[in-house]
């Protein structure tokens, strides 16, 4: 076989590409830019809100209603997709239990259910009466411990009871790489990677956190590894946890970088800066996609195509000035379309059905038309383009991405056999 072309470098694209490469399939990954993992929490959310908190995500997935993308994907593929990710990342990158959700604090002090998380977040699982010290850093935007502590303290835990969080601020010790004011989370994280810096911070924090059971810090403890987190935990002699921040989110960035390196090691050939602008098809099969490149467009031919372009956020789905919604590359049939005043309501907090618009697939992950027939025999879709779910409201983004990527890879394996 001439191989598979994967379009998109987010979680689903990288997972599909790595899985194929592991099976010895030649894979080319073509993408406009990096995927959105640096915008994510760095956790693996399978199903968190329904809208009430979900305790056992795989059971909920197995009972997904008609029209929900999990219905086509199936719980077994979600399980395998998550196992794939754990295998790709290696021992100790993520922990948690895929059967049972864990609540973790957000930067606003809400409690968010997720299945897997980096070890540096584990100690943020709340328990009744736990005394937490939340420490913000003067130069780090987007983490305000008083706000977070206030919200946490008035949130009743599912089993009853409350955590007791106190708020503290620390002026970070100076470092030449810290620069002037207004350092980004990324800049601060790189400083935490410098030898000796985490020890300096630990010494400065120690007096603030006496008498507390655990210490919550903004997720800036290192750009790549988790040495800084381990050092702080050791030096403070008590559990330390990171709280994810708005972009650039370091836990999400670390996950994205690790997966990208893994793809490279596995021999996935990546072309970035290559926005796919058109395709050619023949007799119900996609023959090639054509990507913009400097000079002239480049064709990418393959036996199979896995399309992982994201949804509205990346521009894969667009709404024009007359409220027409289209999938921009293949013009795939969309599910969930309705008059615009049904899709978008003025009530900000209400469910905005526009975000359920997307592509419907069969259990081979092939986009289907309204009659349920596959549009192209060798085109499969994974990730956020799938319609029928509001990923951030449900907290299901990574589960959908990994499950659909795995299902697509399995289907490719079956069709090649």
């Amino acid at each position, binding site marked *: 076989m001439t191989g598979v072309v994967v379009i998109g470098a987010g979680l689903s694209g990288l997972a599909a590409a790595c899985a194929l490469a592991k099976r010895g399939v030649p894979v*080319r990954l*073509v993408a*406009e*830019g*990096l*995927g*959105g993992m*640096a*915008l994510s929490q760095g956790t693996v959310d399978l199903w968190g809100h329904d809208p009430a908190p979900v305790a056992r995500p795989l059971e909920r997935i197995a009972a997904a209603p008609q029209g929900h993308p999990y219905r086509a994907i199936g719980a077994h593929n979600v399980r395998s997709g998550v196992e794939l990710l754990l295998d790709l990342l290696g021992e100790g990158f993520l922990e948690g239990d895929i059967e049972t959700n864990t609540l973790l604090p957000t930067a606003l002090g809400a409690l968010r259910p997720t299945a897997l998380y980096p070890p540096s977040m584990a100690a943020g699982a709340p328990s009744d009466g736990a005394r937490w010290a939340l420490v913000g850093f003067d130069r780090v935007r987007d983490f305000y411990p008083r706000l977070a502590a206030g919200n946490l303290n008035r949130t009743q835990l599912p089993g009853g009871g409350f955590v007791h969080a106190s708020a503290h601020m620390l002026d970070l010790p100076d470092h*030449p*790489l*810290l*620069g*002037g004011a207004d*350092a*980004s989370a*990324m*800049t601060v994280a*790189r400083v935490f990677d410098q030898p000796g810096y985490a020890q300096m911070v630990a010494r400065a924090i120690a007096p603030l956190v006496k008498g507390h059971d655990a210490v919550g810090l903004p997720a800036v403890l290192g750009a790549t590894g988790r040495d800084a987190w381990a050092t702080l935990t050791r030096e403070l002699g008590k559990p330390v946890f990171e709280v994810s921040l708005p*972009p*650039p989110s370091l836990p999400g*960035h670390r996950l994205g970088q690790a997966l990208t*390196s893994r793809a*490279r090691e596995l021999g996935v*050939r*990546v*072309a*970035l*800066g*290559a*926005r796919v602008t058109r395709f050619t098809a023949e007799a119900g099969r996609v023959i090639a996609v054509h*990507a*913009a*490149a*400097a*000079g*002239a467009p*480049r064709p990418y*031919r393959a036996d199979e195509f896995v399309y992982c372009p*994201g949804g509205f*956020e*990346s*521009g894969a789905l667009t709404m024009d000035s007359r409220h027409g919604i289209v999938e921009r590359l293949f013009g795939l049939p969309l599910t969930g379309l309705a008059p615009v005043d049904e899709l978008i309501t003025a009530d900000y907090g209400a469910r905005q059905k526009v975000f359920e618009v997307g592509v419907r697939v069969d259990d081979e992950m092939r986009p289907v038309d309204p009659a349920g027939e596959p549009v192209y025999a060798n085109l499969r879709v994974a990730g956020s383009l799938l319609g029928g779910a509001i990923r951030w409201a449900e907290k299901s983004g990574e589960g959908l991405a990994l499950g659909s990527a795995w299902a697509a890879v399995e289907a490719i394996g079956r069709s090649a056999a």
Partner: protein
Amino acid sequence: MSAASLQAGHALARASLDACVKCNICETQCPVMAVQPNFAGPKFVGPQAERFRQGESVDRTLDYCSSCGSCTLACPQGVKVAELNSQARAVMKAGHMPLRDRLISQTVLMGKVMSPIAPLANGALRVKALRVLIEAFFGVARDAPMPVAAGGSFERWFARRAKRRGGSPPPDADRSRLGPDERPDKPRDGCDAGEVGAAGEADCIGRLTPNARSRGKIVFFHGCAGNYFEVETSKRAVEVLEHLGYEVLVPRQGCCGLARQSNGIFDGATKNVLELCAALRSAGADLPIVSASGSCTGMLKHEAHEIMGVDTPELADVSARVKDVMEFLADLDAAGELPHKFQPIEATVPYHAPCQLKSQGMGLPALDVLALIPGLKVVESGRACCGIAGTYGLKKEKRAIAQAVGAPLFEMFRETGGDLGICDTETCRWQLRQGSGMRVEHPIFLVHQALGLGDA
């Protein structure tokens, strides 16, 4: 600097501005920001500041940007971050361009001056006292890597070789104008076409295949560095192309203007690139153009249009025809037209894909081609930039940044082992040679060796 030349490319890049959602992904990839916290970063000085710009930028940390293009490459929304930055810097420097920046962007001049007196010139640039003086007077960092002039230019080698083969020496090397009887058809030294086996494949080292030139004509774009400094790269690229059966044409050609462009000297660079387009087109319409100068190819394919807004049909024609030599070979292979007749090379070699090659949106074709060589293990660096970014790392005030950017890459090269590393562009090789202490060559060296055309 005319206002028109500063505006031309701007509308194009500015049109991508509103796609910026300030996700900060560019800032996670910026190699300069990682080592120099005073740089406000690509998002800030690029799309964010651009919204407030009318003419000159209010934020002067813009000058820290090395124009490596990692931001544009990473952007999931297609914002031309690096292009906006390059344009804004040209506006900022207009009217008071440092003499140093004018000088170091004169690549042809450097080659012409240094080549005839290569041992002297190379030796002089190794004299520390002289380099200290150059740094004091011109601001070229005393420890920055300097090109090493080859004794003879590629042009001379090519012309002499053609003459030796029995054709009339092509001063303009435009052999397409020669009549059929005048064309050089004698194979390379030591190879007699009569010895070629009936199997139709080359079986003697250095021999032309019996189907020599059966693939038709191809134009070789050598670039300034490929003519005066990295001459071996150009020679080997030509030998590989000829071995595959192409008739290589080398029209007399000048500079692409890249170094001027990256220093914000858009008028001069535009003149250069248009003259180059005319020269390359003079060799024949519709012929493929191939180059082993990855960054100069990028100038033709991308920067001249996207940064400087050059919008002539001649540039459009050349930019669609020109290919990097590894891209050309990878495309041949994808089309099933590259014979897999490679001798094994038992080695593990670190490879760094230069920023300017990555910016071309074609992936990493060197990896595709080198994967065909049995026994060869190529380890990609995965690093954004070596630090030099054209002429950036030559500048006194930028040298420390360039070295800090390159340090992890130098280490990766040394750790991967062996004595040879590979990289597609010239200034990056100079930086990597100096930083890693290793021999660093163009990937075509390995292809050349694996084809039995000589040692790498």
